[in-house]
């Protein structure tokens, strides 16, 4: 904790500070050229929505931000440091500041909800005080409206509840950047809207910057300050939701027509 506070102090918190800077990255798996030339800047406190059909490499892009994958060419900088050049220690420090919500929620299914939420507190922040841990767990669960489920196993939860617990587990360490991988896919419209609003609330409450990958137009509309559209390994358009909706480009408009 201490370390994190110190680090934040050093950071210059100018309003237009770029926290994630992706510069011309490309990535192939064997013959499969997934990313061709991707560039994206995310400013502090901004929600950027990435739209695109499935299998376009959206997940690959955000995995490059946390160093799960490294790009073949180009660099990804987070808080000004190049991710691919980081050592173990630095990478670990980065990962405590970047939250990653997996599509499935990725709850540890051998642990209860409480243990899932305690895991990052005890293993990453190395918190020891039981009362403080309990309080933090309950506070964040309350935030996603699932305090009742605290002693349940993940297998007893519905898809929407799992996502919310996943969100809580990611938020509990108070990351400065959030990466959401299809937060509403596979959920019913009402739950989807709840999750979208939760994302928006998290941004307001904790002042996080986020990248939100989605196909869900309503989610994009609710959460996005800025929208980029990805096609064939490249970004083809960028702008506010309303701008893109009334775009002249047929391909861009097709994203909006599909669902309405």
């Amino acid at each position: 904790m201490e370390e994190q506070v110190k680090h934040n102090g050093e950071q210059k918190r100018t309003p237009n500070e770029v926290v994630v800077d992706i510069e011309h990255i490309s990535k192939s798996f064997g013959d499969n050229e997934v990313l061709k030339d991707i560039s994206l800047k995310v400013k502090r406190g901004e929600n950027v929505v990435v739209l695109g059909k499935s299998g376009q490499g959206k997940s690959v892009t955000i995995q490059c931000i946390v160093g799960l994958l490294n790009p073949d060419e180009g660099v990804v900088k987070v808080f000004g440091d190049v991710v691919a050049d980081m050592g173990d220690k630095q990478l670990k420090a980065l990962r405590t500041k970047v939250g990653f919500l997996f599509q499935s929620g990725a709850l540890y299914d051998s642990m209860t909800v409480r243990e899932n939420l305690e895991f990052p507190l005890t293993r990453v922040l190395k918190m020891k005080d039981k009362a403080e841990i309990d309080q933090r767990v309950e506070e964040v669960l309350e935030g996603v409206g699932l305090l009742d489920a605290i002693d349940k196993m993940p297998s007893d939860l519905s898809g929407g509840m799992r996502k919310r617990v996943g969100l809580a587990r990611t938020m509990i360490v108070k990351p400065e950047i959030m990466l959401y991988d299809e937060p509403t896919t596979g959920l019913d419209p009402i739950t989807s809207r709840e999750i979208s609003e939760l994302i928006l609330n998290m941004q307001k409450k904790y002042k996080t910057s986020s990248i939100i990958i989605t196909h869900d137009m309503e989610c994009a509309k609710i959460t996005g300050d800025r929208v980029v559209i990805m096609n064939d390994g490249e970004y083809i358009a960028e702008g506010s939701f309303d701008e893109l909706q009334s775009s002249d480009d047929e391909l861009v408009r097709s994203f909006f027509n599909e669902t309405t």
Partner: protein
Amino acid sequence: MAEQALTGYKKWMEGVGEQGVFFSRFFRNIFTGGFEWSEFVRQCYEIGYKSFMLVGLTSFIMGLVLILQLRPSMVDMGAESMLPKTLAVSFIREMGPVITAIICAGKIASSIGAELGSMKVTEQIDAMEVSGANPMQYLVVTRILATTIMVPILALMGDVIGLFGGFLALNFTDDISFSLYFHKCISSLEFIDFLPALVKTMFFGFAIGFVGCYKGFHSDKGTESVGLAANSAVVTASLWIFVIDAFAVQVTSILFYR
């Protein structure tokens, strides 16, 4: 043809390299502090609990059957009184360790492979990694150390139960007291019967844990890969057990029986 063989060879070499990297990561993580004691104890308990009954039952039957099979020829040779010694030596040196290890390969390597494989598929391992926690330390180090310690313990229990099975079989026909039987067994054994067996079973245990973890950790991200990870963990671990066994007998004979 030749090309196929070449790519197969290349794949195999890559696998060897990956396992080397996995091993060195495992080894480094033992000493990097923050050892997960409670998870380690939980794993030891699970492993012991899962395989105790099966190891016990199999060893019991093997002890019983070995005596019944050996008796006629031993009687022919007039060496009936040697039966306890024969059983004790063969069980402590070979049968106990190998039976236990093979059963643990089937039971534990597969369950570790399946568990970690499904954690990989459902992105739980990635999630742990990305959160800044250390899945190597929490998942792998605990499991490998637990199997390395538990398999020898299980083998020792298997030895005792196997000898007990032999005692019962001997009592079908002869009348030998429990204390005399066990005295005969123990007195026929020397330190060099125990030590190589113990070291060998530790290697068996290590192989079981290592192969299970490696296969699970490196499974692909499809649902069918969980079954594949479990399956190949059993096959590979069993193979390793026999290879280690063959090595162990050579090393032991060079060190002790010259």
